[in-house]
């Protein structure tokens, strides 16, 4: 460890606002990108399933009521 205590780590020798804001924005951006990619995929798959179901229902109705 380069620091004597957890408090010293947080304080960053007086540079806390700079170090933690740069790291914080980086972490937030990476986490948001990963979360967004996952949500995008889930939403898309649900939408495609809905569309498939709708098309299936449509073609079945055509079979029954020509």
């Amino acid at each position, binding site marked *: *460890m*380069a*620091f004597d205590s957890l408090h010293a*780590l947080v304080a*960053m*020798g*007086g*540079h806390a606002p*700079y*170090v933690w*804001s*740069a*790291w914080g*924005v*980086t972490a937030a*951006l*990476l986490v948001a*990108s*990963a979360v967004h*990619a*996952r949500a*995008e*995929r*889930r939403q*898309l*798959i*649900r939408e*495609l*399933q809905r*569309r*498939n179901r709708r098309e299936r229902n449509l073609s079945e109705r055509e079979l029954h009521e020509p």
Partner: protein
Amino acid sequence: MWAFIHKLGSPKWFYAISTRLLPWFWAAAAVLLMVGAAWGLAFAPSDYQQGNSFRIIYVHVPAAILAQSCFVALAVAGGIFLVWKIRLADMAATVIAPFGAAMTFLALFSGAVWGVPTWGTWWVWDARLTSMLIQLFLYLGIIALRGAFASRDSGAKAASVLALVGVVNIPIIKYSVEWWNTLHQPATFTLTERPAMPVEMWLPLLVMVLGFYCFFIALTLTRTRSEILRRESAKRWVRELVEGRTGGDTDGL
């Protein structure tokens, strides 16, 4: 040879291969970034001149490297799309551009924050900073251009051309610290020389850079796969794949 290239460019084949690769890249990214963060924030020694503000280097340099790499990737994908009409290249370009823009913003932001305690200013209009700002605008231009056309193909072509033209900015950014007088320090990593820093400072940086690369690959694979499903949704294999899921499950994410 041509058969192989076209197989490589087939969305279905890419989807299958990436299903197997994806978990490894996400895991590698998570491990490398966490190790790199703990190492860089708590264990690397502080700089004798800059003190602890130097720890910003562990996010600044990886973001800047990725910002350049994403742009080169965009130009290569644009070239492949324009010459061979391989749609997969355009799908990848679609998802790389926003991430590249985010990395460029991150490099500029962390640089500005770092500049306050070290240079006494958060911004100077010097060559490195200005060329990096231009790159951010190029990214935003590419993203906007893609959406500005009624047909997807026209938008894709325009975005590809802008990526190919904009890539001239890359050597300008790279050599800006050598061609012009600047506050910005020269590159930390070069292929030919050992870093000017002690090993306990640059090793965590290397871990962070590798972590950023793995994250970039994992994110690009994940989002390109979504893009494939979106654009190929009428294809039989996509319909079957979608039906085989309960929706939002994690297998092969």
